[in-house]
């Protein structure tokens, strides 16, 4: 009879909705949301009462630990088979209700599929076994009790939602493909664990477990299980879409609410004011209203509270008893959901200001519970957030903190007691732990990000190595990749950008430097000379293009390339606490110079540069010129094929300057390459065989100095003319580039806004 009423009413409602949809263009999404809210509310209201089924004990006769008789059929209301079946039916129906609610609010295909395909089967079973369901609740069949009516309403609403989902599925042809079916099944299996009926194991197996306490086997098992589940859920959802991740976590939040209200709660002690109990409600609010403030409060305060509760449980009964299962579920979900929400990017990583707001909310909560404890303890024993009872102080033998420092007053016959020292210390201790947890979270997330970046980097390096091996073919890794460039330095389409800047410090620069030349590199300040040189010697990376030193690529064969380079930097950085000789020996060790060669060359250069008198003194005592000479000697100690100097004559006296210029000429004459940057035209005129000019990161020209002189041209005028003309061209190019950049930025902002809106 009631089944007919349920079906009849459902059909009438569906009919009305269909007519409204056809004639009045009714928005189905809104209808689904209203129905979902009704379904959720009716289910939660119906939860918070005792169930007859929860008193059934040890149906499968497995209990070996209980002192009670293992055989307790007088508690059974069904046969063992039916008991198992009813449990499973209630289990799956609760999942169906949760998924139906979620699918109405979140665009998740999987929730929709679960609701759509699981729905008809479970609806039919619920209709068939309605009486058994009511017996499980009341111990008898009574259709007129209000929970019975609620159950019937839930079935009706579920029928309507499932039918609408089918309607949409057929209309839009959104049939799942194989992958979606597989994922939906996996998600379903994963979702089973969170809505298992709390009395399930107890009813079937009795007092099978032990009391979990003091890190015994059962306690350690529970802790390991929680930690393992966090990782399992994380890795299972990590690569899914945002909608799927959000769907599953919302499901967990709803599961938290359902499991929390499963147990009947009466009196002041039943109010959800204990921190972790409050968290269940707060997480629901945070998810439903997308409230950052509420979420981050749970993230900082509730996770910590749940963690402490998990580590220091206060169980007095068997781990599989309903009370303990309820405690475990609530605390596990409160512990896990905030962590996973941030890890899976449902909510952003918190900033310090979120932490401060969380402390503010916690402070208000704390003051409230301290006051309520003082008030409600006039009527019954309550201990919200352990601010009143002796649980914590007893554990550490510090009861005197509470008993010795009490403040109280009486108002209208009620006594309000405050253990002020203990309560202040507890507050400060918890806030301190919140800060610590913030720090630990930060470390952990950084570690995870760093690890991900590391794996990516290692993969990139492997790819680079494979590319190099491919390019070399049958040759050794120590062979030049471009043997045809053996006696040259070749720069091919070199481009350099710093960081994420779009501006190019050097743009498509190509140059070939032959052996036997002193090659000057001219350009104004900020033209890109040092950038080019630093990339050539390996100090900076190359954004685009390639650079070859004697056939070796500086990008993929850096060791071989650098072995052939001697470099004098523009700021002669030297270890000032070493003596000159110690510094040279240090450099010689880095360049693997033979002792015989190093002795001979050092003596030779010391004589040339007249540095012998100071070579065994600390570099700290050297003048600028002496330091420069030392760096020059260090750069030549391994007799490099390519000698690169970055503005080597800056700040030198004429004698020192002359000595270095002589060295440069000599080195080039010995069949080597000398490449140096400068902006002193006179030096270039006298010293260089060839010059190239760079301006605003672009190569202007590559000239033979002799040819310029033959034509009677003035090098200074040539440089300045080119410089001025091209400065003008470069400026207009810069304007164009800036405009393009602004346009790109605007487009990127629009795109980000759109994505946020969609999310």
């Amino acid at each position, binding site marked *: 009879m009631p089944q007919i009423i349920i079906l009849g009413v459902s059909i009438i409602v569906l009919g009305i909705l269909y007519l409204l949809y056809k004639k009045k263009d009714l928005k189905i999404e809104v209808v689904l949301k209203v129905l979902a809210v009704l379904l959720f509310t009716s289910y939660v209201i119906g939860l918070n009462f005792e169930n007859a089924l929860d008193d059934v004990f040890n149906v499968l006769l497995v209990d070996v630990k209980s002192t009670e008789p293992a055989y307790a059929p007088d508690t059974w209301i069904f046969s063992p088979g039916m008991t198992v079946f009813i449990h499973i039916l209630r289990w799956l129906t609760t999942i169906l209700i949760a998924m139906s609610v979620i699918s109405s609010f979140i665009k998740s295909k999987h929730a929709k599929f679960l609701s759509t395909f699981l729905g008809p089967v479970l609806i039919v079973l619920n209709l068939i076994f309605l009486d058994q369901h009511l017996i499980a609740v009341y111990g008898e069949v009574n259709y007129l009790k209000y929970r019975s009516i609620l159950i019937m309403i839930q079935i009706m609403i579920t029928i309507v939602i499932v039918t609408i989902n089918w309607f949409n599925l057929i209309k839009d042809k959104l049939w799942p493909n194989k992958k979606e079916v597989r994922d939906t099944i996996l998600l379903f299996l994963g979702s089973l664990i969170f809505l298992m009926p709390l009395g399930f194991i107890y009813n079937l197996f009795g007092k099978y477990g032990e009391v979990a306490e003091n890190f015994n086997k059962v306690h350690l098992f529970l802790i390991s299980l929680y930690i393992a589940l966090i990782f399992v859920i994380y890795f299972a959802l990590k690569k899914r879409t945002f909608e799927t991740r959000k769907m599953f976590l919302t499901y967990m939040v709803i599961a938290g609410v359902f499991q929390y209200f499963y147990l009947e709660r009466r009196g002041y002690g039943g109010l959800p004011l204990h921190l972790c109990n409050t968290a269940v409600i707060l997480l629901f609010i945070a998810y439903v209203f997308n409230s950052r403030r509420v979420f981050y409060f749970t993230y900082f305060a509730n996770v910590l509270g749940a963690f402490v509760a998990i580590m220091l449980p206060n169980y007095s009964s068997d781990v599989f008893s309903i009370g303990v299962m309820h405690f475990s579920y609530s605390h596990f979900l409160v512990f896990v959901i905030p962590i996973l929400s941030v890890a899976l990017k449902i909510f952003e990583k918190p900033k310090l200001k979120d932490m401060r707001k969380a402390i503010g909310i916690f402070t208000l909560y704390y003051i409230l519970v301290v006051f309520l404890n003082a008030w409600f303890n006039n009527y019954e024993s309550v201990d919200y957030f352990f601010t009143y009872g002796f649980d914590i102080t007893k554990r550490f033998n510090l009861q005197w903190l509470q008993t010795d420092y009490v403040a109280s007053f009486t108002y209208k016959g009620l006594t309000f007691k405050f253990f002020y020292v203990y309560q202040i210390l507890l507050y400060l201790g918890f806030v301190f732990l919140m800060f610590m947890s913030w720090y630990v979270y930060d470390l952990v997330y950084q570690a995870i990000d760093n690890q991900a970046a590391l794996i990516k980097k290692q993969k990139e390096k492997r790819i680079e190595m494979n590319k190099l091996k491919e390019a070399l073919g049958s040759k050794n890794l120590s062979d030049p990749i471009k043997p045809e460039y053996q006696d040259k330095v070749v720069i091919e389409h070199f481009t350099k950008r710093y960081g994420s800047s779009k501006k190019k410090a050097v743009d498509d620069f190509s140059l070939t430097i032959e052996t036997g030349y002193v090659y000057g590199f001219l350009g104004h300040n900020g033209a890109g000379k040092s950038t080019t040189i630093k990339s050539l010697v390996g100090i900076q990376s190359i954004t685009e293009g390639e650079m070859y030193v004697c056939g070796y690529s500086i990008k993929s064969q850096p060791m071989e390339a650098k072995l052939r380079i001697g470099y004098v930097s523009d700021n002669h*950085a030297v270890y000032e606490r070493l003596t000159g000789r110690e510094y040279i020996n240090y450099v010689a*060790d880095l360049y693997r110079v033979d002792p015989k060669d190093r002795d001979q060359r050092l003596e030779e250069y010391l004589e040339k540069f007249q540095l012998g008198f100071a070579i065994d003194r600390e570099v700290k005592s050297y003048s600028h010129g002496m330091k420069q000479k030392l760096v020059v000697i260090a750069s030549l100690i391994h007799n490099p094929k390519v000698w690169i100097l970055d503005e080597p004559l800056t700040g030198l006296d004429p004698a020192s300057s002359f000595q270095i210029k002589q060295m440069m000429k000599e080195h080039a004459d010995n069949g080597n390459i000398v490449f140096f940057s400068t902006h002193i035209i006179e030096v270039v005129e006298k010293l260089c065989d060839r010059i190239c000019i760079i301006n605003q990161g672009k190569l202007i020209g590559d000239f033979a100095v002799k040819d310029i002189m033959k034509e009677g041209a003035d090098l200074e005028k040539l440089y300045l003319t080119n410089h001025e003309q091209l400065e003008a061209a470069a400026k207009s190019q810069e304007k164009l580039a800036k405009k393009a950049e602004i346009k790109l930025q605007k487009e990127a902002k629009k795109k980000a806004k759109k994505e946020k809106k969609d999310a």
Partner: protein
Amino acid sequence: MLSRLKILTILQLSNLTEIKRNKRLFAKIALRILRIVLVTIVMALVVYLFNNFLYITVNIYFVIVMILLSQAFSIGGITSQLMNSLYESKENQILMSFPVTDNDIFISKLIVSYLRELLRSLNFIIPLLIGVGIIKDMGFSYYLGVIVLMFVLPFLATTISSLISIQLTFFKNLFKRYSFLPVILGSVVFVALYLLVSYGLSFLPDQIRIVQLYHSFTNNLYDTMMAISNYATIYKVAGYILYGQNLGLWYPVFLITPVVLFVIVYLLIKPLYFKLASLTFEEARSKKRKAQNEKSNNLFIAFFKKELIVSFRSFGDTLSHYSLLLMMPFVMLIINSIYMRMNRSLNGNTYVLVFNIIITLLIATSSNTASATAISGEGQEFVLLKTAPSDTKTIAWAKILFNILISTLLIFISFVVFRLALPKFPALDLWLIFILVIMINISHIFWSFELDILNPQLNQAMTLGTLRNSPNISKSIGIGFTLSFIAGILALGGTFILGPYVWILLFGLAILLLIVRFVYFRSYLSAYFIDIEM
């Protein structure tokens, strides 16, 4: 002269702060005032607590001792800052080239120092004095006195510090010339401190009963404060002024004394300042060292040798990195001497053990700032590592080994000193703590180094010449704090649950941490070192 002073002072102040450029100046000032008000409220509560709960009499002697203590800290801080600012700061090269006299530079630096100290005094001593005034219901003359002190105390501290800085700079230059002197002096100070601490601890009774002894403790404290106040000289006068005693006599004394001090400083420094300040920029003659070309057998030895030489030749800098570790034996000695004299239950012994673990780890890990700036500290010299055709990341292993050796040695010395000084402390517990601290400390060294590899501050080192503001240092210290407290919590919980087997848990976790940190460090070094750019 006044206009030159004004310009020099503003120049130096704007180098330190962003006053002129700051658009939110009023908001910052308002926030600062709010902070001072909050601190004052806290101080008032503290004074109330002292007076009504801890039974420490808050009277003129208390005030004098507080002023004296805050001045002692201020003088210490200002002296160190003045030594750098007056005689060693690189900006002196620029200032001395301006058309100003040396005295102008000197006085402007004192003014800058005074202003900084004035602001700093608003963070502690002034709020404390106001707090005392509120709790003790003092009259108008007290608050007037506080205002006067607000301006005069920083002046006193600055002038005294400038006098001390002359002596200290002289000795510092002497130490530069004779490098064996700081080693000898350091050893003498270390031994003297040890003897002093031991002597001080010998006054503690054999049995400390805090509750029973508290009354005599407060009495002794009162007598001590009274005795100190009698010798507090000008600070005693400050106390008289606050408490309205003989104002006609003491106000003039209090106001004239700093002026007289300043005149003395000015007369003393006039002939000396330029000589002392310019000495820093003159080429230091350093002695000749061994004249032999030595080849290192491998890269690691080359790097390690370089680290050794540079560290020993900049002994002062090296010492400053590990100064906290040098304090470790004293801290352990004092704390445990008190604990050993207390009547402890079994739980009490557990707490003692846990506190020792936390404190030794806090000190040890806070000394690993050298590791947190190991790569960044290379500064300009990192060019060599970028351009050399060798596996230059080996330098990281050389630096790590060096840091591990030094810190382990210093920690070992600390524990030996502690063991000799307090044989009552259970030897087994002591050496188990030692092993645990070493393992966690080495893990922390790897972790700190890793921070520097991932976020090198080469630019800061190159441009500022210092890494004081490196974020890696604060991160390293934060991680050290976290590790210390986690170790303490595990030790506490583990002892209650596992009893003596807690060491298995702690060692197991410490070894796991060490392995994990080693593996991570190795991976990050291989992946990121080569890509560090300058």
